[in-house]
């Protein structure tokens, strides 16, 4: 299902990161970076909350607004702790979202739909993730440090927020495709790229079909966090299933870190991985005129440790948002 939006604009974005992202190649694009994983808080959960709150504060400053009609936010933690606590301090009507690492574009899709329908004038769409709070919840204690295979990805730390409204700006949210949940039987909890690639392929194909576009219509197509091996799997999948060649394509998980020097295995992941790259370097390139039409596809593995222990495979989803430079 693809929605076309008439008058929805991306007015401002804000990105806050942890130390690993700061040491990566995109550090100059981020609004704020913390040097320690605790972000001067007592626990990792509170550190993630702090980053999310900071990103909204910076966002409101950049958008020159005091608030918004609605706040849409999500993260990886049980009961959406960081989003709930941020909504508590913001005092803005709030929707908590969960689509794992696909939450960022899910938020933009829903926010744009609300604005397009005229129900709200503006919205703040946020996501956060934290490497240590995610490891603690989904895998082993952080200090355990068990080794991981090469296909594993590294949950990014940080928060990203976007301010969207009907007020025209340089970047327009042109359309968006709501993804379907896919499951091709992958049970390897480390190989999230393989889990998510079919969802990305399905959403991409559906988007191009609904909009009657060629794959080369976009100057750049990015996926959220497939990693280096997932990226190649998606390429092969598109070729085999739909006979399409993905050429002007990259993956945010690969762009966020310096894969040769940083200990991030196959690349970054987590809900914040996709918007940290999209809202920083990609928007920057769009504003400079290097890119005009970009399709951002946030990919999410709907991974539940409980269900994996019960021998079930991991479902996944992907939502796509098409951004255009306003001429």
């Amino acid at each position, binding site marked *: 299902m693809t929605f076309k939006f008439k008058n929805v604009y991306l007015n401002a974005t804000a990105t806050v990161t942890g130390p690993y992202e700061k040491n990566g190649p995109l550090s100059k694009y981020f609004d704020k970076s913390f040097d320690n994983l605790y972000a001067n808080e007592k626990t990792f959960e509170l550190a993630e909350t702090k980053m999310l709150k900071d990103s909204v504060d910076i966002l409101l400053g950049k958008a020159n607004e005091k608030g918004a009609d609605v706040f849409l936010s999500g993260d990886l933690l049980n009961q959406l702790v960081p989003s709930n606590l941020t909504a508590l301090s913001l005092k803005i009507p709030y929707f908590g979202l969960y689509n794992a690492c696909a939450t960022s574009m899910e938020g933009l899709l829903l926010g744009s739909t609300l604005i397009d329908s005229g129900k709200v004038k503006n919205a703040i769409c946020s996501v956060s993730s934290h490497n240590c709070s995610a490891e603690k919840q989904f895998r082993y204690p952080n200090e*355990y440090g068990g080794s991981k295979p090469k296909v594993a990805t590294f949950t990014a730390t940080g928060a990203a927020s976007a301010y969207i409204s009907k007020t025209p700006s340089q970047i327009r949210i042109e359309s968006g495709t709501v993804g379907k949940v896919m499951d*091709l*039987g992958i049970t390897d909890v480390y190989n999230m790229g393989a889990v998510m690639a079919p969802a990305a392929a399905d959403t991409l194909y559906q988007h191009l079909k609904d909009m009657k576009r060629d794959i080369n219509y976009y100057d750049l197509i990015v996926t959220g966090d497939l990693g280096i091996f997932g990226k190649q799997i998606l390429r092969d999948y598109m070729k085999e299933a739909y006979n399409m060649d993905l050429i002007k394509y990259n993956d945010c998980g690969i762009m966020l870190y310096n894969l040769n020097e940083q200990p991030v295995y196959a690349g970054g992941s987590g809900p914040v991985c996709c918007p940290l790259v999209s809202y920083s370097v990609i928007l920057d390139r769009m504003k400079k005129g290097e890119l005009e039409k970009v399709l951002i596809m946030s990919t999410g593995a709907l991974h539940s440790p409980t269900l994996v222990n019960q021998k079930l495979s991991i479902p996944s989803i992907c939502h796509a948002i098409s951004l255009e430079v306003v001429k």
Partner: protein
Amino acid sequence: MDKEKYQNLVDKNIPKENVKINAAKAFLVGGFMGIIGQLLLDIYTTWLNIPTKEASTYMIITLIFLGSLFTALGFFDKWVSWANCGLIIPITGFAHAMTSAALEYRKEGFVLGIGANIFKLTGSVILYGVVSAYFFGLIRVLLFGG
């Protein structure tokens, strides 16, 4: 695309782990741990005149203490990531797994945090250790008379 075809596509694209190098590392580090254990045992028996049976207990306690201390100091997880089973299988791995869980859940309190979670990783080692000790003990009594 069906599941089997997709699994083939995935297998074609994912890298192979260096099983030989990993096994060699684990073998050497694990062996080195054995040497350290034997050295401690020798020190305790010859220099401190402790009987061998008690000295082996002291040796185990020393290794558990060092494993826990190094975990708490924050660098043992990096050693474990590198050496894998070389450090996980010896008693140091057990100490490390317990200490890391304790550190992780410290902020959630002494009872519901540390108490409820300290055996998160090592609970199965204790459970199946005790169960298999019972059965092997039984076999030993029945076959060899104790």
